[in-house]
């Protein structure tokens, strides 16, 4: 249906019903927009460059992990947790192992705990490298990202040496690790400790006092602590508002209480503070790794798992030669193990915040119910409300500093 052509009175368009200056534009930011760093959509109503309102649509990579987990024995759920926050998969793996160990009341040797701490802190550094590097890219400074990205490669090489995988690591087992860290792994960790600080310092020098970066990020998306707590924020973005909630300090797991480290907090809760908090957390992670290496030296060598034959898979060569090992292997793989009927909530400090596992077990082969408390999912729900009134370019760096990982968002 087209309108009848009327006589032209002017060569300029005439708008009778809609004044374009007052009309809002609908902008689909995502689902596959390079600035969203993941598959999620925001339908924004914009007035010029200013966002009036927005609606977040998520679920583009929903894979029903909670449903799948109800059909899998415990050790087969570890690969699912890899794919939650795939930038720091080892933290998810360890969180899941610790949840099951809490349920089964397995005592983990100190050396294994320190090994876990090393792996988790390396993963945290890798995650923060991504977030802060990308934040630089989104604000228009590409070079810092390249310096840091190279360091992530070295972290992945350490993971590769420890477990064979790089991104979705599936690292460790219920009860410990699948094998001991070898000499190469230790030397790579030590090499990383030496080479990373100068690079991180250089990265910080590029940004911290950079006037363009400060003007671009300071006072952008500032959140007051009351609001952040109201929205159940956790992790670096909550600490940037000034709340010193860190699961590693509040409810220590894996012997974190023995380590000497600081919890950095911000004051304004804006993008700049989140950037600074993440940078400082990388320094603190380095401190923790150094201490963990010293502590491992004092522990008996060669211990890499707890002595729980009914839950920890025996070495493969023994399965072929030893009757007892074969029986344990069979029972574990078939899920025929004695487990308590109970429920347990265990939280670890993931790279984005409190990563919780709520496990209800009825004594069967598989969990009765497993729920992931995913920090990205809960942190992200404030994005659309807080975007209204913001410029699009500010909303982009706000999203970048929230560090929403699509896998963790959708589960």
């Amino acid at each position: 249906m087209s309108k009848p052509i009327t006589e032209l009175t002017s060569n300029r368009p005439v708008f009778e019903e809609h004044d374009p200056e007052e009309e809002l534009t609908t902008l689909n930011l995502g689902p596959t927009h390079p600035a969203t760093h993941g598959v999620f959509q925001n339908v924004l109503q914009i007035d010029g460059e200013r966002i009036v309102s927005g609606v977040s649509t998520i679920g583009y990579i929903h894979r029903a992990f909670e449903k799948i987990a109800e059909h899998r024995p415990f050790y087969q759920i570890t690969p699912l947790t890899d794919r939650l926050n795939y930038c720091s998969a080892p933290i998810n793996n360890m969180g899941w192992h610790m949840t099951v160990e809490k349920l089964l009341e397995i005592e983990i040797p100190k050396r294994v705990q320190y090994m876990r701490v090393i792996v988790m802190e390396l993963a945290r550094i890798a995650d923060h490298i991504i977030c802060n590097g990308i934040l630089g890219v989104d604000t228009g400074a590409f070079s810092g990202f390249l310096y840091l990205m190279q360091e992530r490669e070295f972290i992945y090489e350490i993971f590769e040496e420890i477990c064979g995988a790089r991104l979705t690591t599936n690292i460790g087992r219920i009860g410990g690790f699948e094998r001991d860290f070898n000499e190469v792994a230790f030397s790579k960790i030590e090499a990383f400790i030496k080479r990373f600080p100068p690079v991180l310092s250089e990265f910080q020098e590029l940004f911290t006092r950079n006037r363009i970066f400060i003007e671009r990020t300071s006072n952008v998306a500032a959140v007051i602590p009351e609001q952040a707590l109201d929205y159940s924020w956790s992790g670096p973005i909550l600490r940037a508002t000034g709340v010193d909630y860190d699961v590693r300090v509040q409810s220590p797991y894996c012997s974190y209480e023995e380590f000497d480290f600081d919890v950095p907090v911000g004051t304004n809760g804006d993008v700049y503070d989140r950037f600074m908090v993440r940078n400082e957390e990388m320094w603190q992670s380095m401190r923790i790794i150094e201490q963990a290496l010293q502590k491992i030296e004092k522990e008996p060598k060669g211990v890499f798992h707890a002595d729980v034959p009914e839950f920890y898979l025996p070495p493969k060569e023994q399965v072929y030669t030893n009757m007892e090992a074969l029986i344990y292997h069979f029972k574990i793989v078939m899920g025929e193990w004695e487990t308590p009927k109970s429920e347990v909530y265990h939280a670890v400090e993931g790279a984005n915040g409190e990563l919780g596992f709520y496990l209800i077990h009825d004594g069967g082969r598989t969990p009765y119910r497993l729920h992931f408390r995913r920090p990205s999912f809960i942190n992200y729900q404030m994005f659309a409300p807080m975007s209204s009134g913001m410029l699009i370019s500010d909303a982009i760096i706000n999203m970048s500093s929230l560090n929403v990982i699509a896998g963790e968002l959708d589960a």
Partner: protein
Amino acid sequence: MDKLDNQQLLAQLQQHFAEGIIRYEEPYGLLTIHTKKELILDILRFLKDTAGFIYLTDITAVHYPERENTFEIVYHVHNLVENVRIRIKVSIPVNEPTIPSATAVWAGANWMERETYDFFGVEFEGHPDLRRILNMDELDVFPMRREYPLEDPNRVDKRDFYFGR
């Protein structure tokens, strides 16, 4: 001041909501109380305003098809200052799966309840925007309910050779 422990907390709750606390247990040191759905908002408000449980950690649901009250809504709430967590459970029947929304207490409950609605079909009364969140809007089932099984891995029509592999 003494550190708040589970016994004190339970005593406080029982004092305020005498018959409202149906039963309680402490699996792995986490106080778990069972209550009625009429009282849930009052208990959450009491915990937030009086007892210092300012942080809502999580809301989720569990489906027990063999029970009379099929759904169990589970709240995890955290007192950040005293570092005490509490778990609150409410059982509701499947033919009337409604419960007052906690969005009146915490804004952050919004998506947690949407997720619970999406997967279990629990209606949160007073929720500002109760839509599906992870699944597509056209879905007419609630997939985390127990009656919906995962796809059978032994399906014969999905053998690889049908797809030229």
